[in-house]
Structure formats: C-alpha cells, structure tokens
C-alpha cells in the first residue's frame, strides 16, 4: 500500500499551478487535502506522472461573506467551515461540513477537493446545489464559472477539465429570512452517506414558502437538485403535509443506483425520509428568522 512513483511540485502561486496542469494535462493530479487522492494512489488506482500540491497557495484558503453570497476558497478545510461559528454561514453548511468523515479527515480535506472528486455522496455537492452554487475554475486559458447544475456530470465525474483547478465555490444566500438544514444517513458514523439532503426554505411575512431548495446526495450516480419537490413547497404554508408532498415528489430525478430493485427502493425511502427531516428543521429555523425580523 505505497503510492507509485510520481513527480512532485508544490507551487506557491495559482499561476504556476495552472501552468503545470496546462503542460501535463491528464498526466497531472492536483493534491489538495489528499483524503481521496492519497488512498487512490495507495491502491494504484491513480498513477499520475506529476502531483501538483496546491497546499502552499494560501490565497485559496478563505471564507468570505459578501452581499448575498458566501465564497469559499477551494483550499478551505471542512473543519474550518464546521467551526466557523459565524451567523453568515447557514446551518445546512455547518451541518454538512460536520458530517464529512472524521475529525482528522475534516482537518485536511478541502471544499475544492471534494467538488473535484465528485463523489455522489459528498456533502459539499448537496450544499452546492441547494445554494445555487457556482464552481469557479482556473486554467491557463482563464477563469470559467460552472453552475452547479452543469458541474456534477456522473459518478466521480465533473465538468472540470484536467487542465483546470477549482479556485472557489460561490454560494448564493436567499435574500429574505431563511432557514436551512442538512440531514444524512450512514451505517456507521463517518461512513459514506447512503443518503443525504440539504434543504433551504425562505418564508414570506404570511409564512408562505417563497423559496425552496432540496438537494439529494448518495441516492444515485450523481447528486441532484429535486425541482419537483421544491415546486410542491413554493406558495403554500409549510406544514407536515407540505413536507410529505415534497418528499413524495422525489424519485424520478434521482437516477437511483443499486444492484436490485430492493436496494433502489431502500435508497429512495432514505432520501424521502431525510427530505422530511431536513425540511422540518429548515422550516423551524426559517420561522425563527421571520419572527426575529418582525
């Protein structure tokens, strides 16, 4: 279980890093937190000729709150977000970060690394979809802004090119009082999620749902935003029936994976149950946010 031989560069600037990727293309791999790439190297499932270690590019490690937006530098560690303790970081985001692996993994693992790896059960994917995220990538050709809906292409596959580095995740925060929550289910603590749901709800003064987002991970080959579930919520007052209607609308868009119909039914059931839980928690928080504004 030792990594194969590879070349190694640890540039201190983004320009150097993208230059190296431009030279090596598919033969290079970006090393960020290493929590997925290092096991892949140990198993010899990845055999890059060059590792571009971006850990010295300090500008990529940042957490910034700007008008209606939360920007996370790609080298921001999960643990940093989990412990941010800032009201500018919505509950769904800290809850999602806190459920990634274990502490030692969260200390090293990064936002950008998780996105680029594109594991269908990755917590960051749910957050990205639920906050209409934009993945900002850089190559020698310049900057490219990839909307979440176009980024997650399939199992461990994103729209990122081999010559590109994720530099930032931009999350758009709702402009009215909102609540959010993330819920997931795994067989053991820290295991890959068998399902996970991020939900965001914004309420109007009359308590009707003005904005809803439901994003599901772990159910299929890629993470998905469930627009049918969101449509079942918008315009009505949130209650148990609304949550059930939203959960019931989940299904066709999940692209469920499983070796047989039993496993697919199980994953669907997990996704629906987690949707209800996440929505109830988000609604409670949204309600408090509205009350505080009044």
């Amino acid at each position: 279980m030792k990594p194969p031989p590879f070349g190694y560069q640890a540039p201190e600037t983004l320009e150097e890093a993208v230059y190296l990727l431009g030279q090596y293309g598919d033969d290079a791999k970006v090393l960020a937190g290493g929590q997925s790439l290092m096991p892949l190297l140990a198993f010899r499932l990845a055999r890059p000729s060059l590792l571009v270690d971006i850990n010295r590019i300090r500008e990529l490690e940042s957490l910034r709150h700007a008008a209606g937006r939360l920007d996370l530098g790609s080298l921001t560690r999960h643990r940093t977000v989990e412990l941010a303790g800032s009201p500018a970081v919505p509950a769904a985001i800290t809850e999602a970060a806190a459920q990634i692996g274990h502490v030692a993994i969260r200390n090293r693992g990064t936002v950008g690394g998780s996105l680029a790896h594109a594991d269908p059960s990755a917590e960051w994917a749910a957050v990205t979809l639920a906050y209409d995220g934009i993945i900002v990538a850089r190559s020698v050709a310049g900057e490219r802004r990839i909307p979440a809906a176009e980024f997650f292409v399939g199992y461990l596959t994103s729209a990122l090119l081999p010559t590109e580095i994720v530099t930032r995740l931009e999350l758009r925060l709702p402009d009215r009082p909102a609540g959010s929550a993330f819920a997931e289910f795994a067989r053991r603590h820290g295991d890959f999620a068998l399902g996970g749901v991020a939900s965001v709800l914004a309420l109007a003064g009359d308590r009707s749902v003005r904005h809803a987002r439901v994003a599901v991970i772990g159910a299929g080959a890629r993470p998905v935003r469930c627009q049918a579930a969101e449509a079942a919520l918008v315009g009505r007052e949130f209650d148990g029936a609304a949550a059930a209607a939203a959960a019931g609308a989940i299904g066709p868009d999940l692209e469920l994976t499983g070796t047989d119909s039993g496993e697919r039914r199980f994953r669907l059931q997990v996704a629906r149950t987690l949707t209800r839980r996440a929505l109830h928690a988000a609604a409670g928080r949204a309600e408090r946010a509205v009350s505080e504004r009044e």
Partner: protein
Amino acid sequence: MSDERTISFTLNGSKRSCRIRPRVTLADLLRDQLDCTGVHLGCEQGVCGACTVLVNGRTARSCLMLGVQAEGVSIRTIEGLAGAGGGLHPVQQAFSAAHALQCGFCTPGMILAAVELLGENPAPSQAQIREALSGNLCRCTGYANIVSAVGRAAETLRETRAPEATSGPEAAGGSPAGGAENSRPEGAR
C-alpha cells in the same frame, strides 16, 4: 534520476531535516527515518486512524500525507507526548488507569485524537468523546474503557488547569500542568 529533496520541520519540539523521495508517506518517513515507530500503520489507506499524528496541533492521518508535505510544519507523535522527566501525559496516565488498551495497536492514534479533543473542549460529553474517536478503530473492541479514559483525562486536565485546583499534580502523574504543550527533546527516549 534522484528525485530526493530536503525538508525541514519540527518533530516533537526539535528541528529536523531529512532527504526523502516524494512518494514516501509521512507515516513511513516518521517510522523508517526518524524512529517514531509509535506511528502505527494499520491500513495505509486512511481508514483505521492508527497512524494519526498532530500536524500543527491538529490530527491528521500520516498515511494520507506525503513526507514532503511536512516542510515547515510542526509534528507531534506519541513519542513527544510524555513530560521531560519521562512522566506520562495525563491522557496516557488515564488510559493506563482505565485499562483502555489491550493490544495497544490503536492506542497512539486514540491518545492523539483525545489530546486534540481535550484541547478544544475541556469538558466533552460521552457523545462528543465518541464522535472525536470515531475515526480510530480498535479491533480489541475496548471502546468502553477508551471512552471512560478520555473522560477521566478531561477531569484531570480541568483540575490541573484550574488556578484554584488543589488536587491536580498527583492525579496528573507528576506531569506539570498543561502537559500537552510540553515537549521532550529528541533523543530523550
């Protein structure tokens, strides 16, 4: 082609520098070149937690870091935890007192994970202790005693850290207060 490079870092309080190839993991560097064989290698794929070390005070799995990434950082292994006189760190003391080790393979990782937890949270609940240790596997399944040892260490550390504490020093096994920050000079093992 020799692709060796020289790196310098702090190991258990002492400056070290060595030459290594990029493919060598931090765990192998510590074990093979620096005699830190308390860094146990169980799975070498980031699952078992036995190779946990503290990198700039935070736990990391040393099988998931490259040795070259140690450049400029401060690393603490189980070898660097005891006091200068050889007295055990309060967490080590608690593991001994609570019978929290059987074969001992997972112990260094467990202890370093506990040291990180107690640095951040001096009074963790049982659930918080279990969460903090969840990335470290014990195949003797001695988890109950490990969890109670961490709770016991938390009590000891609270007593020794509190300025008005009266019963600290003997409970801490002779380690000075704040033993977590003490380092033993390299070679004192």
